[in-house]
C-alpha cells in the first residue's frame, strides 16, 4: 500500500526520509501548499483587517473572509457567519461552556458528557457544573468502546441542558452516530455539542446535515497551521449567547456605561484575528478536497485493517476498542508488561513516532483499566512500510523486555 499523497508534498517528511510519523491524531504534518499560502499572505496581503482605510488592509480583510467562506464550504456550513474562528477545539469548547453554558445552565440542571471525551470536552463541563451547581452525568461506553445509546437515553431528562460528545474518539477511534445523538438531545430539549477534532481530518463532515447545535475542530490536525480552529454554531443559539471575550472588533458601540455588540461572526471574535491561520486552514481544506475525503477515508481504512491484523497477531498485544472497520485514524494498544512510554522510547530510537500516555482522556483510561496506552495514528502520507516499522519496533521492545519469540 502506497501513500495516498507522497511524502514529497510534505516538506518535513521529505527532509527526513527516515521518519515514520504515526502521531497524526496529535497533529498532522503540513503540505507545502499550506506553508506556501501562509508565506504568500505575509508577503503580499498582510495588514490588520477590518480597521484599514487603505487597499492593503482591505485585501487582508478579504483574505480572512474568503478563508471563512472556504472553510465553511468544507464543513458543509451554508451560513459562513456561523463559523467562528478560534485557536482550536479546546478554545471552541471552552467558548461554548463559558459563553453559552454560563448563561443557560443553572443550579440543579444536568450536563451530559461521555466517558470517552478528551479533557477538552470534559473538564470545561465539569467546571461549569461545579460553578453553576449543576450535575455532571457521564454516559458510559459499550464493551467495544461506542457511546452506549441506551445509557445516554436513560440520562436525558427535563433538567438536561447539554449533551457534549465526540465525533471520533481520540483514543479508540470509534465513530459516533452524531445525527442520532443530536436528535436525542434535541428531543430532550438539550443543546448538542460535538467535538470534531478527530473527525474533520479523516471523514467527510457535513455539519448542517448533522443537525448539531455546536461543532468544534482544530486546523492543525487537518493539515492546517497550529493556532486556528473553528466553532460552528446554529445561528439562533450563537445570537442568543452573550459574548465571551470583549474588546476590539466585537463591539458595535462603546458607551461610558455599557456597550453593544457587533453581529456574527465578529461578536465572538474579539481582537486581531489570526488571518494567517485562517488562510492556512483554507489552503489545507483545498488540499484535502483535491485529494478527496472519501479517498482519505478509504486509504486509512486499508492502513487500519493491515495494522490491526498485524498487531493483533503479536503475542502480548492488547488492542483497545472495536475492529478496524468501526474506527477512524487511531489504534490504541498495550504490549505485555511494557509500559507505553518505554515502548515509545524504543520506537523513537528507530524513528517511529507514536503517542504514549493517557491521551488527555483520563476518565476513559480508568475505564479501560490502563494507566496509559500506546497510540499509533494514520493519515494520508502513511503507507504499509510505516506499519512494517511499527511492527519491527514492537518486536525490538519485546526482545529488550525479554519477551522472546521474535
Amino acid at each position, binding site marked *: 500500500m502506497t501513500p495516498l499523497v507522497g511524502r514529497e508534498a510534505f516538506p518535513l517528511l521529505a527532509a527526513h526520509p527516515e521518519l515514520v510519523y504515526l502521531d497524526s491524531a496529535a497533529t498532522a504534518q503540513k503540505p507545502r501548499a499550506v506553508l506556501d499560502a501562509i508565506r504568500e499572505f505575509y508577503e503580499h496581503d498582510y495588514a490588520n483587517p477590518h480597521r484599514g482605510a487603505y487597499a492593503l488592509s482591505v485585501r487582508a480583510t478579504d483574505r480572512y473572509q474568503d478563508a471563512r467562506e472556504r472553510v465553511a464550504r468544507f464543513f458543509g456550513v451554508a451560513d459562513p457567519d456561523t463559523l467562528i474562528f478560534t485557536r482550536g477545539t479546546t478554545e471552541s469548547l471552552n467558548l461554548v461552556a463559558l459563553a453559552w453554558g454560563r448563561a443557560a445552565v443553572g443550579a440543579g440542571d444536568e450536563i451530559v458528557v461521555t466517558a470517552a471525551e478528551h479533557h477538552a470536552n470534559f473538564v470545561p463541563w465539569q467546571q461549569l457544573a461545579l460553578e453553576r451547581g449543576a450535575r455532571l452525568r457521564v454516559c458510559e461506553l459499550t464493551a467495544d468502546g461506542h457511546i452506549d445509546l441506551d445509557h445516554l437515553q436513560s440520562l436525558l431528562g427535563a433538567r438536561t441542558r447539554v449533551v457534549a460528545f465526540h465525533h471520533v474518539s481520540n483514543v479508540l477511534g470509534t465513530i459516533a452516530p452524531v445525527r442520532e445523538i443530536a436528535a436525542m438531545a434535541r428531543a430532550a430539549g438539550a443543546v448538542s455539542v460535538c467535538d470534531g477534532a478527530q473527525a474533520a481530518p479523516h471523514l467527510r463532515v457535513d455539519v448542517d446535515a448533522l443537525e448539531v447545535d455546536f461543532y468544534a475542530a482544530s486546523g492543525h490536525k487537518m493539515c492546517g497551521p497550529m493556532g486556528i480552529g473553528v466553532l460552528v454554531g446554529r445561528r439562533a443559539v450563537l445570537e442568543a449567547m452573550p459574548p465571551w471575550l470583549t474588546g476590539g472588533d466585537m463591539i458595535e458601540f462603546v458607551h461610558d456605561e455599557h456597550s453593544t455588540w457587533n453581529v456574527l461572526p465578529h461578536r465572538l471574535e474579539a481582537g486581531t484575528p489570526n488571518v494567517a491561520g485562517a488562510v492556512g486552514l483554507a489552503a489545507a481544506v483545498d488540499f484535502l478536497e483535491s485529494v478527496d475525503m472519501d479517498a482519505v477515508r478509504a486509504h486509512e481504512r486499508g492502513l487500519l485493517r493491515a495494522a490491526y491484523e498485524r498487531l493483533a497477531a503479536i503475542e502480548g498485544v492488547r488492542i483497545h476498542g472495536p475492529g478496524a472497520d468501526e474506527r477512524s485514524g487511531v489504534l490504541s494498544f498495550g504490549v505485555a*508488561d*511494557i509500559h507505553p512510554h518505554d515502548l515509545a522510547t524504543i520506537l523513537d530510537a528507530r524513528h517511529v513516532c507514536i503517542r504514549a500516555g493517557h491521551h488527555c482522556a483520563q476518565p476513559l483510561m480508568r475505564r479501560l483499566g490502563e494507566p496509559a496506552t500506546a497510540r499509533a495514528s494514520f493519515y494520508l502520507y502513511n503507507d504499509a512500510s510505516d506499519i512494517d516499522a511499527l511492527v519491527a519496533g514492537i*518486536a525490538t521492545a519485546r526482545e529488550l523486555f525479554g519477551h522472546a519469540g*521474535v
Partner: protein
Amino acid sequence: MPASDGPAPHLQALYQELILDHYRRPRNQGALEHPDAAIERRNPSCGDIIRLQVAFEDGVVRALRFAGQGCAISQASASMMTQVLQGKPREEVERLSRRFTAMIGGDADAATDRSLGDLRALAGVARLPSRHGCALLAWKALADALARQG
C-alpha cells in the same frame, strides 16, 4: 512478524536486566506504619505516580517505602533510590540526590560515582531528554519529603 534487527546499544544498556528486575520486582514497596512524611508526586504529562513515605531518626533516613505506577524508568529509579538511600544520614542523602540529578543531566563524572550504586544503570536516561522527568519523579518526591521535615 519480521525479525527485529536488534535494539540500539544505548537502549540495551538502559533496559538491562537490573532495571527490568527493579521494574518487575520493586524493592521497598508498600507503606510505613508511622511515616514522618508521605508525598505523592505525579507527572501530569504521562500520568506516572510515585507515593513515597519516609521515616527519619536522629538525622538519618531510617526507612523509605514507595508505591507507584508508571514506566520502567520511573519505577526502577524509585526502587533503586529506596535501596541506596535507606539508612543514610540526611546530608549524604542530599548529596546523592544532587549526584543522581547531575547524572541524569548528563554529568559524566556523576555517572561513574560508585556511591550511586545500582542507580548508575540509569545513566543512559541522560541522552533521552523526554524521559528525564521519569527518572527524577521519585527524587522530586524525596526532595518534598526532606523539605517537609525541615
